[in-house]
């Protein structure tokens, strides 16, 4: 187990190093020049050179990348007018466009994204697993056909369409809910939830469709296996068979898929946050790509990469716990 975790950690670090190098390289291959953008309309050559220096763009790319890696380990200093700003390790860089360390920018947005993902995941699991189980147990009946149809539609609908429909129906026409505006949980839990209901629903419904299909397939597969027949033959109650054994069998692929879905979820949350005007990490990404704020893009990419790789590792461990057939070597 320890050996496994160590190996996994080594792989994580390698993947992230490669990822950061790729993002750096990609940004230097595109013609957009952050210095020109920061300097503004009618900037002359001299001011452009000064701006380039200030943004740390005067050095060659590999030197910039090296300083970035140094900053991760040892922290860095940045000029900030009359004073010098210290960016403590792990320093993900400094956004000159918003004059904040990248890590601070991301952490200030993180609670929003976490709130969104948490609620959406709850919606997805509750709806998805129950719909999946139900349709497995009602195989061949009209209920199953209806559920399969609904989940197919859910699976195929892009999140921004669901979001738009929800906004139009509940905020614009019925006016049951406010147009979402993020309220921190610590400030007002009631308003936090009220404002997030629609984003949760939009993001959760689509995830639920995926979960429902996986659960259904897994449960169907398990239900026809020999040990289930044996349990039934022993006279175990159907409810126990399903809860203790069928559901458990369906759980393994569900855990794996949840890890893969973390990446999907991040993509979808970019759209959800943009659609609902939630100031989360997803929208930060969109804004930073739009304004060629390289340090922020690199920082977000690295953190997103970390999340995906880590969630996959966690899923492997959880699978082993849920299904004794899976071994960690």
């Amino acid at each position, binding site marked *: 187990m320890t050996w496994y975790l160590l190996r996994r950690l080594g792989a994580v670090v390698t993947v992230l190093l490669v990822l950061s190098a790729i993002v750096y390289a990609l940004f230097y291959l*595109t*013609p*957009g*020049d952050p*210095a*020109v*953008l*920061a*300097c*503004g*309309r*009618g*900037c*002359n*050559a*001299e*001011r*452009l*050179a*000064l*701006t380039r*220096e*200030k943004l740390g763009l005067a050095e060659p790319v590999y030197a910039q990348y090296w300083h970035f890696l140094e900053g991760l380990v040892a922290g860095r200093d940045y*000029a*900030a*007018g*009359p*004073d010098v*700003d210290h960016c403590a390790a792990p320093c993900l860089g400094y956004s000159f*466009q*918003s*004059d*904040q360390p990248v890590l601070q*920018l991301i952490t200030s947005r993180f609670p929003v994204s976490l709130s969104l993902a948490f609620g959406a995941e709850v919606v997805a699991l509750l709806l998805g697993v129950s719909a999946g189980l139900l349709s497995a147990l009602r195989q061949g009946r009209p209920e199953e056909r209806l559920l399969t149809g609904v989940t197919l539609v859910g699976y195929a609908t892009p999140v*921004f*369409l669901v*979001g*738009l*429909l929800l*906004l*139009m129906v509940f*905020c*614009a026409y019925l*006016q049951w809910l*406010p*147009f979402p505006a993020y309220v921190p949980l610590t400030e007002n839990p009631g308003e936090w939830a009220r404002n997030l209901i629609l984003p949760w629903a939009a993001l959760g419904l689509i995830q639920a469709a995926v979960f429902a299909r996986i659960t259904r397939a897994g449960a169907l597969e398990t239900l026809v296996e020999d040990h289930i027949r044996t349990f039934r033959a022993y006279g175990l109650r159907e409810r126990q068979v399903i809860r203790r054994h069928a559901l458990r069998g369906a759980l393994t692929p569900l855990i794996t898929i949840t890890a893969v879905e973390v990446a999907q979820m991040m993509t979808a949350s*970019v*759209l959800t946050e*943009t*659609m*609902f*005007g939630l*100031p989360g990490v997803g*929208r*930060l990404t*969109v*804004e930073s790509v*739009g*304004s*060629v704020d390289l340090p922020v893009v690199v920082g977000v990419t690295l953190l997103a990469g970390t999340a995906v790789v880590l969630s996959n590792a966690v899923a492997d461990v959880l699978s082993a716990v849920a299904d004794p057939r899976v071994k960690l070597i």
Partner: protein
Amino acid sequence: MRMRPTALFGAALLTTAAATAACGGASGTASSAAFDPKTCQGGTLTVLNQGGLSKFDPATLYTSGGGALPSLVYRTLTTRQRVAGEGGFKPVPDLATDLGRPSDGARTWTYTLKDGLKFDDGSPITAKDVKYGIERSFSPDLPGGAPYLHDWLVGGADYKGPYKGGELKSIETPDDKTIVFRLRAPHGDFPYLATATQFAPVPKAKDTGTKYQNAPVSSGPYKVEKYETGKTLKLVRNPHWSRSVDGQRLACPDRIEVTAGLDRSVINQRLVSSAGADARAITTDASVGPEQLARLDSDPALAKRVARGVFGETKYLAFDVTKKPFDDIRVRQAIAYAINRQSVVNAVGGSALAAPATTFLPEGKAFGQQPYDHFPAGESGNPAKAKELLAQAGHAGGLKIELSFPNTDGEGYGPKVAAAVQDALKQAGVTVEQKPLGEEDYRTLVGKPATQPALTLQSWGADWPAGGPFLIPIFDGRQILKDGGNFNLAQLNDPAVNKEIDQINTLTDPAQAAPRWGALDAEIGKKALLVPLYHPKTVVLAGKDVKNTYVDQWRGWYDVASVSVK
């Protein structure tokens, strides 16, 4: 990635609007019936915006006339006149007692500060604070402001700001009330420039460099309670400001809360719904799109909540005349003749949102526009005349060219306009290959003469409502910037044009300067260096309880300092 949801939401709205559509020709401006400036104080104004909160430092902001939100916090030596109609084009004194006293042939400008001016901590505003505010805008740590000060002030080109460069000698403060600017050349437009946020006072003791924007010292009616980059700005009253020292800002609401990062369609939908606090909401950057216009026609009550205006701006086709085949004036003329302006206007939403343009200067007396149409294409183009000119230029068998443009339609010169241009030129036997580019990449490529595509779609807006800031960056040969940030895309360096620009710059009376700019525009127009396409119009919505919502002429948007929510 942002455009798709926007477009879809628009489509959905359009469908619902069409379903209930009835004929109706409602128009007009938002209601101001019960508005009385004497009793307008109170309430919280909500501002719903797409962007615009990426920075709030007076040194790094690039505004026209001081901007909508910044000018609530930062008073400047002069400001735009806060009235509806043509009067809105005029600069008026703000912190200063007058528009400035020119001497030495408009090379020296002297200002005197009004009595009783105070910062939000109660300390007096002095000439030194104004000088310091300008000086710090030269620091490379605080880039982004308008370039004029660097070009105009003596020693400005080499000055690196107060953190490293000491004081700028060309700004003198003989006493606490007087400030003198010494310019390298005559600039009659100085009172217009003095509306920029760089002219706001900053007390040196409170300067925290790049952190200053988080807690700036206010000289205007409001002070910053909370500012979060890209997210929110909350303003509350500045107790040391009063209308007795500020003749321009009414400052009716007690609080102003700005949220940025919203989708344009969502903003407009919220303003339409006007539910809860949204009834007292406006936007300073989300125009009503073509998809919502249909709904306005069928809903007279909603149409009353709309204000229409114009920001001096021109969208155009720009040639690099140093590159083939555009080095031949006949090819450029042919393209000018072939343009179908009606289809361009339709592409951006129709006549409510755009007016066809044949002049580079926008409409309005302030710009000095003299109507001209050197290559009359009519409403829908003159392909026969274009073919004739192309044949003369040796392209009888047709011509293949590339057109570069930004790959989104947000700024009004993207793929839709490119398609309209492509269609029109096809009629004249010109095959256009489309080259869409990411917006930031596009700006970078176009800004460097070495990488500039030969034919591009462009947009130019006014830094202030006069001919100078329109014609100088685009046609002054000394403004060709080789290292980036260039806007003289034709690479025109004509001594006669340069000389006329210098002469008009010496005029300190806008009424004298305007017709000269207009005449210069008409003269340059003969060279067919660019093809004007259209001048955009603004249509903006307000929540149902917002009053005194006129569109200010200088900027083409609501003046936040004038609206009331009581």
